[in-house]
């Protein structure tokens, strides 16, 4: 295998694995802020138990997110040295801003969020929770800005030629607000809210089915359902806006997403299908002119197809892009249907009688996760063969001195560690969920708390 394939597989693997966790931190962070906000306002112990329970799960998720995230930061240098030199002036500043303005905020307050319950006052603890959540939101801003600059570069000029060429920043704010960053950031944030809300709903649906922590679970489920309903509907708008941007800024990617080849003809909209790259067509149920209609409000409007691009400038894996994109859209629609149904039943007051629906919500935690992954695969595979769209090809971005054996070594190492990590994560997550929120209202200085404090050093 050659270095390019190995390096791409390694990057895709490490970043996809990492991306299981940050959306959960962002989405769960939002819900923890809400839970603790309710606790602060009402003083009801049920919200305190909810907040403390989810904090324990958050700690697990956050820890793995940090550990796998640092890998990403250094992988640009180890495997993509030419890329790093080319974009450092622009891309590096977004990454540095993430460290200073976002990650420091999250990690700084994390200690208080996790260990500070008995050391700081309730409002200060709430501020710490808010700080961690805002830090994770800011983190998404800078990472999505950096990635969006790769998709739609702006605010730079190219200095030097050939092997010495590199991008230099000319306008920082034009770089930050490049044509795709706002759309993509909104899309990512909402995707994260969905991931967090569906995790909360999944766990509490399971408790409800088991008849455990019923009062607490009904409250938590309802809050998460409200967040999920608003988010899934908002995601429709954000996703559409994002696709319109792709049509304008990265027409080759849009063409691959819909498997549209004809250079200048109306484009259909597929429910699902299979792209035949030889025959340059897609087999599957479709709405003729549907994509044209969505993008231009006219089913006859022409959409730039793959044939308009030189073969070297097209995404190579058209069918893969098509599939992951349609998977994401399909799941998005399913999430809307599921949350609307849930909300309607909740409004009617019969939601918690519908055991079959609760049974659906338990495994539904996987849906937003799969959709988030599929969305990123669409974005990144659709950008190929470019690493920076129209400027630098992926094949030219590698570390010239790194050999295939070295990449294979690191790929095997990361595969082993991440497999272990995923296994441990699922095991401990399951254990924490089975253990559940602490029972009863642990009011300050109650005998129960005193007992817990005394037993603490021996606690497993």
């Amino acid at each position: 295998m050659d270095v390019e394939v190995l390096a791409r597989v390694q990057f895709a693997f490490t970043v996809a694995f990492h991306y299981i966790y940050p959306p959960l931190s962002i989405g769960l962070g939002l819900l923890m802020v809400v839970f603790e906000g309710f606790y602060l306002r009402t003083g009801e112990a049920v919200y305190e138990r909810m907040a403390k329970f989810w904090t324990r799960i958050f700690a697990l998720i956050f820890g793995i997110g940090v550990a796998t995230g640092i890998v990403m930061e250094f992988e640009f240098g180890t495997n993509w040295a030419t890329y790093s030199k080319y974009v450092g002036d622009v891309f590096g500043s977004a990454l540095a801003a993430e460290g200073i303005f976002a990650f420091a905020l999250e990690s700084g307050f994390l200690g208080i969020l996790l260990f500070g319950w008995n050391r700081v006052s309730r409002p200060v603890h709430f501020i710490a929770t808010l700080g961690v959540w805002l830090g994770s939101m800011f983190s998404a801003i800078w990472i999505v800005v950096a990635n969006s600059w790769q998709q739609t570069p702006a605010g730079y000029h190219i200095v030097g030629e050939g092997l010495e060429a590199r991008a230099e920043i000319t306008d920082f704010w034009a770089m930050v607000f490049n044509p795709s960053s706002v759309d993509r950031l909104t899309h990512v944030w909402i995707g994260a809210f969905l991931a967090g809300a569906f995790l909360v709903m999944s766990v509490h649906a399971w408790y409800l089915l088991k008849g455990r922590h019923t009062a607490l679970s009904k409250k938590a489920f309802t809050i998460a359902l409200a967040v999920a309903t608003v988010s899934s509907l908002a995601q429709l708008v954000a996703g559409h806006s994002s696709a319109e941007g792709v049509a304008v800024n990265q027409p080759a990617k849009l063409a691959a997403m819909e498997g549209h080849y004809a250079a200048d003809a109306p484009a259909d909209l597929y429910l699902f299908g299979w792209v035949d790259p030889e025959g340059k067509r897609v087999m599957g149920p479709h709405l003729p002119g549907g994509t044209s209609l969505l993008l231009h409000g006219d089913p006859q409007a022409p959409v730039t197809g793959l044939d308009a691009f030189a073969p070297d400038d097209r995404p190579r894996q058209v069918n893969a892009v098509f599939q992951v994109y349609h998977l994401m859209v399909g799941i998005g629609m399913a999430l809307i249907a599921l949350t609307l149904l849930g909300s309607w039943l909740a409004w009617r007051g019969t939601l918690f009688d519908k055991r079959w629906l609760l049974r659906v919500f338990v495994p539904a935690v996987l849906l937003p996760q799969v959709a988030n992954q599929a969305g990123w695969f669409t974005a990144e595979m659709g950008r190929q063969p470019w690493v920076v769209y129209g400027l630098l090809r992926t094949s030219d971005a590698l570390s010239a001195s790194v050999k295939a054996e070295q990449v294979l070594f690191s790929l095997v190492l990361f595969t082993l560690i991440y497999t272990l990590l995923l296994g441990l994560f699922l095991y401990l997550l399951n254990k924490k969920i089975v253990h559940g929120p602490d029972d009863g209202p642990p009011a300050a200085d109650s005998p129960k708390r005193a007992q817990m404090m005394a037993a603490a050093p021996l606690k497993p």
Partner: protein
Amino acid sequence: MSERELLLGLDLPTWWFLVIGALFSGYAILDGFDLGAGGWHLFLNKEESRRIALNAVGPVWDGNEVWLVIGGGALFAAFPVMYATLFSALYIPVILFLAMLILRAISIEFRSKEPMAWWRRLWDVTYCCSSLALSFLLGVLLGNVLQGIPIDARGEFHGSWLEFLNPYALAVGLTTVALFLVHGALYLGLKTQGRLFAKMYLLVKRAIIFFILAFAIVTLYTLLYLPHLTDRFREEPALFVLPVIAFLAIANVPRLVSKKRFFWAFIFSAITVSMLLIVVATELYPVLLRSTLDPAFDITIDRAASSDRALRTMLWFVAIGTPLVLGYTFFVYRTFRGKVKMDEHSY
């Protein structure tokens, strides 16, 4: 390269050399003590001691790693050529470093989640070994930077992938382990009482002897074989005050430990860490990475730096971000000040 903009008489790449030096010093001082504390883990025999030691670093280790994240991001942004060349040339140690960071993070997280003896033993070993390995690898990376690596005019590495394991780098690696063990023992002494405190009181002195031996070897090797590092000191003898301060600071540590003044001993070991890095910076400047093939291929700060515009923008980040970061770091350390107290939220 073209004319560089000046700020208070220094050009922007020099400013960034200082900023990144400060970030890595901050990282070495902060993560240095928790890596060192981790290195002692298997020397603690009682379950109770191990849990206390773990909870001494519990609320802060993640915040300490922030300095690595910011330092790495800043190096990427300010000196992309250095970032790209160094990490691709030293591929294997960097990858091992990242792998160890993950193993260490999960061993802290997971150790106390299960009561089984084998489980705790497994993560105790992982925690201790990864802490030592990380300290060692940091030293190995530094040793290679100090010694120089075979890079050509374009900054491409021309060496074998095992070349990072050379005597000098190994010696610097051991010195770093020793220094962090001293620093970590002082931190644990500061945060504990009773038998754990007494144990640290004994161990820190042995660690200082280990450090002084390792440091003497590195100094001798440097003086004999790496003249490029000592040129500046020969030209400017006044600069000898820097290593002398470092030496006095470490010499002061056992004196303060004997008086059981662990806080000040910890401050002085932190001063030692930063003074040694200042010595390193003085030796290197204005070269970031020396080429062992030809001095003309050296990566200087001017060659490695981003444009003045990028550097200026990011100085604003530093100006705005530093007070914020120091603010919440101070707040966290204040909240968890004093000896370790366990509660139901502890590891």
